[in-house]
């Protein structure tokens, strides 16, 4: 009786945290790659059903959509730059286990500050001066937007996820208000103020943006990996108890890190408004603030890996929309495909962190 009872109670499999025997990094990469391949296969099936075309043809079209022409390549770079910039911004906060999902709003107020500078003092001060003010204003605005939830988190432990989420919508409404104030005769649309934008290097409209973000990427990598502040962020994120033990003020680190996070978001706003659109609307950041969270998370908070994850998402987005345009299917299919790919990648982390141990008898395959 004893034996049968034990067998009956043992589940089919149980889940074991890999913990000490974590798998080597290349195996983890292999699992992630496999997940992406799987996801692409699923997407291909969907595409084939909808277009009735050869899937290889479809992927060719995707490549064409992303790299086909000079213009498309620059578009790809520009989109990566913006997404990567915001992803870099949220990373220090996430590393500290502070869930800043307010990047959308922080970037938007950064852009709003830039637009305000262009609108109010554009033409009244020398262009060089204007640019300096624009940079300062956008950084300060983004930092303030991040500082508010940070202070409440540090002092009263107010839930930062919900707080930063709400701050996004306040920012959106704020932009709405200012656009209405600035727009001529109630059109509610701001005309571009191209003459006051960031300088254009040569004839490459997006080159400066790409350079700024490339520098930021290297800078953030160095900041997180080699600076004392970056080290403190890691310690606080890993264990607050250890931080206290070695005398780190957790409150100070939370506030300081969120200032950095918000400031970089502000720069993203500057790039979008000052360096690209030269105007602003509620959709200027266009959800990149949310996508960035996934980019950063998928890259395990490593700025260099983020280039890859940001590239992947932008490539899929541009490629899929080209496919939908070429094959005359609804362009919304892109979002669905990106969603599917995200689910696969998010889900595959499970197999990196955990191991399925199957019951020792009977059939049961090896886990992925």
């Amino acid at each position, binding site marked *: 009786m004893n034996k049968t009872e034990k067998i009956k109670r043992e589940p089919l499999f149980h889940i074991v945290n890999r913990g000490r025997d974590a798998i080597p990094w290349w195996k983890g990469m292999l699992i992630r790659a496999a997940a992406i391949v799987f996801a692409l296969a699923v997407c291909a099936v969907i595409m084939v059903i909808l277009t009735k075309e050869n899937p290889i043809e479809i992927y060719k079209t995707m490549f064409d959509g992303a790299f086909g022409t000079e213009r498309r390549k620059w578009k790809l770079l520009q989109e990566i730059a913006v997404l990567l910039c915001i992803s870099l911004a949220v990373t220090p906060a996430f590393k500290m286990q502070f869930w800043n999902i307010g990047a959308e709003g922080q970037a938007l107020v950064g852009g709003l500050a830039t637009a305000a500078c262009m609108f109010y003092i554009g033409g009244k001060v020398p262009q060089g001066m204007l640019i300096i003010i624009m940079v300062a204003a956008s950084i300060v605005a983004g930092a303030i937007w991040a500082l508010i939830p940070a202070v409440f988190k540090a002092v009263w432990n107010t839930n930062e996820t919900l707080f930063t989420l709400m*701050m996004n919508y306040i920012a959106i409404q704020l932009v709405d208000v200012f656009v*209405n*104030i600035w727009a001529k005769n109630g059109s509610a649309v701001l005309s571009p103020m191209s003459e006051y934008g960031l300088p254009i290097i040569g004839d490459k409209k997006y080159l400066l943006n790409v350079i700024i973000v490339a520098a930021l990427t290297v800078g953030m990598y160095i900041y997180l990996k080699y600076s004392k502040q970056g080290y403190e962020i890691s310690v606080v994120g890993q264990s607050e108890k250890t931080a206290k033990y070695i005398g780190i003020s957790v409150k100070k680190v939370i506030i300081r890190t969120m200032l950095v996070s918000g400031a970089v978001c502000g720069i993203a706003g500057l790039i979008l408004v000052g360096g690209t659109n030269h105007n602003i609307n509620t959709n200027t950041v266009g959800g990149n603030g949310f996508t960035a969270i996934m980019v950063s998370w998928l890259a395990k908070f490593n700025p260099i890996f983020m280039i890859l994850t940001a590239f992947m998402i932008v490539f899929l987005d541009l490629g899929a929309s080209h496919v939908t345009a070429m094959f005359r299917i*609804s362009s919304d299919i892109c*979002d*669905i495909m*990106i969603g599917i790919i*995200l689910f696969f990648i998010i889900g595959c982390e*499970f197999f990196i962190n955990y191991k399925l141990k199957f019951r020792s008898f009977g059939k049961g395959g090896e886990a992925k």
Partner: protein
Amino acid sequence: MIGFLIGAIRLGATFLLGSTGEIITQKSGNLNLGIPGVMCIGAAFGCFSESVYVTSLNGGEINPFLAVFIPIMCAFIASALAGLLFSFMTVTLRANQNVTGLALTTFGVGLTNYVISQVKSTSTFSVASKYFTTLIPFKYTENTQWLKLFLSYGPTVYLAIIIALVSAFLLKKTRIGLHLRSVGENPATADAMGINVTAYRYGATCIGCGIAGLGGLFFIMDSLYGYWEYAIEAMGWLAVALVIFAVWRPNVSIIGSFIFGALYIAPNHIKGVTFVQTGLLKMLPYVVTIVVLIITSIRNKKENYPPAGLGLNYYREER
């Protein structure tokens, strides 16, 4: 004035369903930021099924009951499946809830737009909408005008309020509610007391998403009279805000939803309101929500805190 209040309450039903669904989900400890996407999915599949039903009649007579019942069922099931996906990712695969939720919103919005683009004739929505907006036949006299405030709604508003009240009752006064709350507050204790944490999280998330999905459907069918508009996502984020505003109580959410509805439509009803004031009014729900969030965290009253296990995945340590 009465017209304004009626409008606020009608729109409030959308917020109410969205927030009630999210409250049930959050009470189990799952922070589902995919709720805007889920509401879109609910609206899309509800409307899609409606168009299929109406088109299949080939101009024949529409059965009022089916015209309401079919989309509600489809919206509920499609949204609950989205909840199932979320639960599978976060409870079974233990993925990060924030990331999964945001991915679900991206996915849901895309799926919705695609589904709607496949509808042959969106005019069927407004045809069917009249069954959602059928009012109680009541002859108002001079002295009974005030009754309009309570009687001038289609079935959807009453359904939303009933769902909120039933949810409040279930959470507060029943064993299921007690167990659900314990799962969200302290899953380790719930587990030790023999409560199936996984089952409760799956169940609450799926049912919560189903209810929220109805909110999306009713927004199109009732508030917009069947006119499709891509504003549901914004409604969804307001519903998430309302959860905090209502301090995780569906009955408080009823009042809150009417306030949110009033703020949302106020610009259309106040004469001479400028664009700027409109923007500020629309900002108000979020500002108030933040104030509520701050006050509850400063005031040391634990009943008003978010569920202690919110956003954290639970698993028993294996030896």
